[in-house]
């Protein structure tokens, strides 16, 4: 049981890093990024390629964060000034391109075969202590990211991005260019996604292009929308809900064996869909409540 809980905690942490980035982008700034998984993918591949070629994991993690951030640059340059839903579509397309590149450029990514045997972090220890060490690393990154988010929220920068979320036109009317702020937010969020991807790669040990489908992005969306957009506590709550939901459905099967597993999978997808709809309609502020300052 322990190892299973630790595994869930590690994956939750990896999701939390993704969700914090997305919350910064959407929850705080109003930037609709449907291509988050693209940067996750870039980070995973960067770290996997470097570490399987002998670069120490500490460096490859750093590189993953940087490359994840750099990958967002061209997307930002091209589409950050587009209206919000156009940016959403552009980013979705961008993540699909990333996946195609990972699929097609075999010389770099080993193509459809994927990269196997990615070294674990702390390769010296094994078994349970390895898992605990991994959990510790993930936790440290999550705590750092949360602290960074808190600082941003309380800073003039945070004030400005929230102003952009509330009313972009009004920000322009004050002589401040929203594009610059959005760009920084996109880069930082993508950096977190890149780091998250690297941790994922080292944890799972094997990556291939078909792991980086847009569905991952929408799971994270579901998490931040259910938890409460624009609030860090909401993001954390959302990720926990997502994991309970994804993993809990496995246990549901044990108490409700009359539901065939094949139906279970569809039910899971349907429930994510339903949650997205119901929360947008009836509880748009999410579980943890409105982000209005009190």
């Amino acid at each position: 049981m322990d190892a299973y809980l630790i595994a869930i905690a590690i994956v939750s942490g990896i999701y939390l890093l993704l969700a914090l980035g997305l919350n910064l982008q959407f929850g705080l700034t109003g930037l609709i990024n449907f291509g988050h998984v693209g940067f996750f993918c870039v980070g995973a591949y960067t770290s996997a390629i470097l570490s399987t070629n002998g670069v120490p994991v500490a460096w490859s993690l750093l590189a993953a964060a940087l490359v994840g951030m750099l990958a967002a640059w061209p997307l930002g340059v091209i589409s950050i000034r587009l209206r919000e839903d156009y940016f959403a579509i552009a980013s979705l397309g961008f993540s699909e391109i990333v996946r195609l590149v990972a699929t097609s450029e075999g010389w770099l990514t080993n193509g459809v075969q994927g990269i196997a045997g990615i070294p674990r972090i702390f390769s010296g220890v094994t078994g349970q202590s390895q898992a605990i060490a991994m959990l510790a690393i993930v936790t440290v990154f999550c705590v750092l990211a949360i602290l960074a988010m808190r600082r941003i929220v309380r800073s003039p920068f945070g004030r400005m991005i929230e102003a952009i979320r509330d009313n972009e036109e009004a920000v322009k009317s004050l002589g401040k260019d929203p594009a610059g702020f959005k760009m920084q937010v996109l880069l930082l969020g993508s950096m977190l996604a890149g780091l998250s991807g690297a941790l994922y790669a080292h944890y799972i040990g094997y990556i291939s292009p078909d792991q980086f489908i847009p569905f991952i992005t929408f799971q994270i969306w579901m998490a931040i929308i259910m938890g409460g957009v624009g609030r860090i506590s909401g993001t954390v709550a959302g990720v926990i809900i997502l994991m309970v939901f994804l993993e809990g459905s496995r246990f549901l099967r044990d108490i409700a064996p009359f539901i065939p597993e094949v139906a279970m999978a569809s039910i899971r997808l349907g429930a994510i869909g339903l949650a997205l709809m119901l929360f947008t309609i009836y509880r748009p502020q999410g579980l943890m409540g409105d982000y209005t300052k009190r």
Partner: protein
Amino acid sequence: MTLEIKEMSKAYGGLTVVDRVSITMEDADIIGVIGPNGAGKSTLFSLVTGFLDGNGGDVVLDGKPLGNASAVERAQAGMVRTFQVPREFAHMTVRENLMAAAPGQGGENLITTFFRPASVARQEKEIAGKVEETIRFLKLGVVADTPAGRLSGGQKKLLELGRALMTGAKLIMLDEPFAGVNPVLIEELSQKIRELNARGIGFLIIEHDLGALSKLVSKLYVMDRGKLIASGEPAAVLSDAAVREAYIGGGAN
């Protein structure tokens, strides 16, 4: 700050919404633009401030043609607008709304946020001081820590004016500042505009409420169906036959 609007035009398909409108404004003047609903006043505002791309015409600010300058650049040049439907930052407090408007904040990027917190904090203190002044001036003290989305219509208009002041604008363009505001507050708002004008800030005001506006402005322009149909001293313009026709015929409120 002088403003010269030259032959501004805007057409949607076959429909010309703003038709070669020209307006000139002296430094620190107060000018009014009136006209019935759908006359193209707000569109003209958006054209001048760069929120819409026009089909011809130019804006000259302090003798410099603005050409294709973006809305942001125009605002940075010192010409700041408000909106007909107030666009407050609804989830932020009044104080935060005003803080956000202050120009040249070093803390508005991630690098300084993380690596130069001390200098950011210093600047925040300065800005907070200016915000206090503005709050006092606009008598918004009671609601200073209320989320702006919960303000009354009149308070929101005051807040937008306050934000414009915080930017250090030399020319403020108000889009229907009196609409939906109670008469007492209208008088107060007019008073504030006069005071600010006395400090050298110019105002270009779109309004429906002729009574309040005509007492405030030195010159009135009248628009109807996209065209300027009259301009001049308020009293003269209001007695103009064409203007009366446009207003009554246009079914103004």
